[in-house]
C-alpha cells in the first residue's frame, strides 16, 4: 500500500527522530516529499509511505499517540486534458517533472505519481485549466 501523509509537529516534538521510528518500528519505506522544520517552533513533513496496510495503520496510531497531527494527504492536482493546448508554460514551474512532454508528440503528459501538489502550475497555466482539489 502506498499513501501520502502530512505531519504537523508541535513545538516540543520538532527534535524527535520520528521518521527513523517509522522506518525501524513499522518497516515502512519513506520518501520525504517536502520538509519544513523549525527546531523548537513547528514543523511540517509531507511523506509518501509504502508498507503493509496493517503497519501503516499502526504507524498512524503511533504518530497520533506522540501528539502529531496526521492528515491523509489527498490534495490532488487536476488538469483538464480536453482543454489543454499543450503549450508547456506549466512545465517551467514543475520541478518534480510531473508535468512533462511526450518527446514525440509534444503533447503534455501528467504523471500524478510524481506530483508533489505544490500548486505552482495552477497560476502558471495560461488557460487556467489546472486546479488543486481536496
Amino acid at each position, binding site marked *: 500500500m502506498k499513501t501520502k501523509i502530512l505531519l504537523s509537529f508541535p513545538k516540543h516534538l520538532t527534535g524527535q527522530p520520528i521518521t527513523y521510528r517509522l522506518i525501524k518500528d513499522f518497516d515502512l519505506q519513506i520518501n520525504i516529499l517536502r520538509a519544513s522544520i523549525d527546531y523548537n517552533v513547528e514543523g511540517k513533513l509531507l511523506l509518501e509511505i509504502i508498507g503493509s496496510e496493517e503497519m501503516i495503520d499502526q504507524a498512524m496510531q503511533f504518530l497520533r499517540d506522540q501528539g502529531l497531527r496526521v492528515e491523509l494527504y489527498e490534495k490532488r492536482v487536476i488538469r483538464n486534458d480536453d482543454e489543454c493546448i499543450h*503549450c508547456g508554460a506549466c512545465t517551467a514551474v514543475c520541478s518534480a517533472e510531473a508535468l512533462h512532454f511526450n518527446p514525440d508528440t509534444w503533447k503534455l503528459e501528467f504523471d500524478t505519481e510524481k506530483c508533489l501538489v505544490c500548486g505552482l502550475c495552477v497560476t502558471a497555466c495560461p488557460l487556467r485549466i489546472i486546479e488543486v482539489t481536496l
Partner: protein
Amino acid sequence: MTVKKSYEEINQRIKEGKAVVVTAEEVIEIVKEKGVKEAVKSVDVVTTATFGPMCSTGAFLNFGHSDPPIRMSKVSLNHVPAYAGIAAVDAYIGATELSEDKGMEYGGAHVIQDLIDGKKVHLKASSYGTDCYPRMDIETYITKDSINQAYLYNPRNAYQNYGAAVNTSDRVIYTYMGVLQPRSGNITYCSAGELSPLLNDPYYRTIGIGTRIFLGGAVGHVAWEGTQHNPGKERGSNGVPMSNAGTLAVAGDLKDMNSKYIRAAVFEKYGATMYVGIGIPIPIIDEDMMEHVSVQNKDIYTDVIDYSVPKRNKPTFGKVSYQQLRSGFVEIDGKKIRTSPLSSLAKAREIADLLKEWINEGKFFVERPVQPLPSTAKPRSLEVIGKEE
C-alpha cells in the same frame, strides 16, 4: 536546368487534386533523401504553422444601429473596454485589455473567444448625444451572429523568431514569457522553429501582403507588414534571422473561427493575451524556396535574454539553437538549465496537417503576394523629448 514552378501551375495541380503537399517538418526528410533538385520536382506546397501567445491581436466589430441611434463613444464588452473612437457603431476590442470587474483573469482575448464560441456578450455603450445620434446610453447583449462584422485584425503576429528568456535575479519574475525562476533556474522559449512560417521563408519571397493563410480555424490573409517588422536583423548563412525579425499583420473573419485554434490566455501577473493559430502554405516555386523550407531546428538560432533587467536593451547570453532548446535543457556557463516552450508544437502540427488537408481537398489555393513585405526597415525607439527638441 533549374526547376521553376508558377503559382498558376501549382494551383492547377491543387485543382486537379494532383498537388503534393507536405508539412515543413516532413519536407526535411524528403530533401535529405532526394536532394533539393529532385524534391522541387515532386513537392508543390509546404505547409508551415505556429500556435503561440500573440498579444497584438484584436477584433473590429460593427454592432448595427439601434433605434433611436447612438454614436457610441464609450463601449465595453463583458465589462472590458473597447476602443470606440471610430464611426458610430464600430469598435475595436484588443486582446490585452483587462476587464473592469474581473481584472487580469478576463480580458479582451476572452471576449473574442466568447464571441467565437457563439456566447452572448454584454454590450454597454454611452455617448454625449448629437442631433443625428440622439441616444445617450445603451445596454444589451450581442452574439457574433447578431452583429454585422466581426473580424480579427492583428497588428503583429507570427514573429520570425523570438528570444528565449532567463532570469538571473534572486526572485521569481512573472513575464509574458511565463514564470522565470531565480538564479537562471529555467529558460522559456516561444517559436515553432523549423515549422514556423517566417523561418521557412526568411526573405519573404512567397509570404507577403495578400497571402492567403489559415487564421484561427478560418481563412484569412496577410494584411500588411506587422508592427515592429524588422528584416534587418543579423542572419545566419542560411538567411534565417538569429533573433526576432519580421512580423505579419493578419486579418480574418471571426465568425468562421474555432476556439480550437485560437484561445484566450492569462499570463500570471502580466495580463491577458491570446494564443493564435496561424498556418501559411509556401509554394515551392524554385530550388531556392525548397532550400529554405528544409531548414532544421539545429540551424535556427536565437538569443537567450535576461528578463530580470527592466531595460529596453537586455543583456544576452549568446545564441542557442532550437534543437538545443527542444532537448529539454541548455548549458550556459557550465550550468544545465531546464527549458520549456510557451508556444504549442502539438497545435502547430495539427494546423499544418489541417492546412495540408484543405489543399489536398482542393479547398485552399496559394496566393501570389500583391506586394512584398519590406526587406529593409530600421526599428525606432521611443525617446522622451521636449517640444522644442
